[in-house]
């Protein structure tokens, strides 16, 4: 699949005139223009109900926009079939949720390795054989501040902060083009939050991965290169 290999494209993410709504009369999400280059970081704020999970599903290729275009890693999503979008998501996106990020029946390391099951290119990028890939997962866990003693534990025995580090390692393994994080720090105390975001951004930067984080927390603002409000993205452009 040629489309999935477009890692060298300038844009990790480009949204243009994006509109989404189940009902044509009401628009749930409206973004005129939004773009992220590889390695760039953006903090997106927005109140509950402003369409954050809709945006996540649109970029993930699970939902289709009513109008406008979504380009991820140089690939226009609407030109891909459903199957291709699933594969494309596996290869190009790392996603961190607010909570419940791990599969309880897999070990910590196996949770990190999970996306590689669906993404042959990321698998190849993270190591030539299972041992190398395992080492890569352990390297990322270590870089994100999770000590080796936790690596073989069942994931449900970890604290929320530790679970988020595992989720970050999973999102970054195999160097996808774009990392989407949906309020990943909302359950963390300030000290852990800052450490987590710093390590996450540093590791993303080292693999030239663009980061789009959704969060209400203004304390995080100065750690990101850019900031925007989901509400403004629609109305600002309309006013302009």
């Amino acid at each position: 699949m040629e489309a999935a290999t477009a890692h060298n494209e300038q844009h990790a993410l480009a949204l243009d005139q994006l509109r989404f709504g189940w009902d044509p009369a009401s628009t749930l999400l409206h973004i005129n223009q939004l773009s992220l280059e590889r390695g760039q970081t953006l903090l997106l704020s927005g109140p509950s109900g402003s369409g954050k999970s809709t945006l996540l599903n649109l970029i993930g290729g699970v939902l289709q926009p009513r109008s406008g275009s979504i380009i991820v890693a140089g690939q226009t999503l609407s030109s891909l079939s459903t199957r291709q979008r699933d594969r494309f998501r596996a290869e190009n996106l790392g996603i961190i949720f607010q909570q419940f990020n791990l599969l309880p029946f897999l070990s910590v390391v196996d949770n990190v390795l999970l996306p590689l099951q669906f993404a042959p290119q990321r698998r190849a990028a993270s190591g030539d054989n299972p041992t190398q890939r395992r080492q890569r997962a352990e390297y990322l866990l270590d870089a994100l501040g999770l000590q080796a003693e936790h690596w073989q534990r069942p994931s449900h025995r970890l604290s929320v902060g530790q679970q988020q580090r595992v989720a970050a390692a999973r999102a970054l393994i195999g160097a996808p083009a774009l990392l989407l994080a949906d309020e990943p720090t909302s359950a963390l105390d300030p000290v852990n939050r800052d450490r987590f975001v710093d390590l996450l951004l540093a590791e993303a930067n080292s693999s030239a991965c663009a980061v789009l984080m959704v969060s209400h927390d203004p304390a995080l603002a100065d750690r990101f290169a850019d900031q925007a409000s989901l509400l403004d993205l629609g109305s600002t452009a309309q006013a302009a």
Partner: protein
Amino acid sequence: MRGGLTGFALRSLWNRRGSVLLSVLTLAITVALLLMVERVRMETREGFLRSVSGVDLIVGARGHPVQLLLYSVFRLGDATNNLSWESYQALAEHPQVGWTVPISLGDSHRGYRVVGTTAEYFARLGGGDGAAEFSAGGAFGETFEAVIGAEVARRLNYSVGTAIELAHGTGRINLHNHDDRPFRVSGILAPTGTPLDQGIYVSLQAIEAIHLNWRSGTRIGSAPDLDEAQLAALQPRSITAVFVGAQRRAAVFSLQRMVNGYRAEPLTGLLPGVTMQQLWQLTGGAETALRFASYALVGCALMVLLSGLLSTLNERRREMALLRAVGAGARHVFALLLVEALLLVLLALLLGLLLAIVGLLLATPWLHAQFGIQLREIWPGMTEMQVLLGLLLSGALVGLIPAITAYRRTLLDGLTVDR
């Protein structure tokens, strides 16, 4: 995830083993029950057929063929009428008749029926394809000798040489004993799993001899002392039934017609296979009910399994969303759920098969002692394999339900579970 899908499903199931194991056990137990019912049913039928294999025609006094079959072969109930020795001789000398084995019933020993017959009985009604085998001793030679079936020997702990007294009538407790004429056990038959095992066999002359001083069912005085030559000359006036082998198989039907239209005496001739079918039609209702009940139980257990799978789907929505987020398609979610259900059903079937085999092994002595059913084959045959295959397919169909549900739900949920 193609290669890893099964392993993935296994790990997920193992994580929920507590709740899953219970429904698997339920299914396994019902499957075992079904397999055991099928096996016992088949073995019973086969045992029935075995007990008359080689016999072409059974002749008795006029009556219902099923009743004649029951008392002559299975020693159940009593004959209402006998047939005369003259009729028997006419039959035995008929050109189309190959061999005959007469039997005379009516006496018993501690609940086991006494069969007065000829030594040819052991050659013709061996309970299998050929002659009966003796595990000890041999056929009766002198008049007051008896051959006993394997079960009689085992239950009453008799051996060759043991002296036994016969009782008049077939009740378990009997006031009228032929205690003036004790018999000596001359041989013990090898077990066959047929009614052969439950009989005591003496010569027709012996039956006559012990009834010499009997009139209308009571004993008058004591039996006259006869020497062996006089005893051998005793001829029965009537017998209970005759097993007949035809000269040629094709002659069986004309023989039956001849018997049923016999002028001198009203007789009934039955074809064992045909009458066995009639008997099964009579018992078929209970049999069908039992089978239906065991299939219904398996159906219930599948429903238990299904409700277990469906009830966890809601808790697992996050798991599915997570899988979608790391790149799984809705079809992967579908396949995962289906594979999970199939693994559970497969496990339950294997467990059920194991339980059935263990159950049959344990039940064999009891079934034999209680009902005379001998299970010759305990390992599953073609029929069981077909049943298991059918159950696996039903399991797959049941597994489709949670798989489709999860598939549709995951399309709605996408990568996030908000509600």
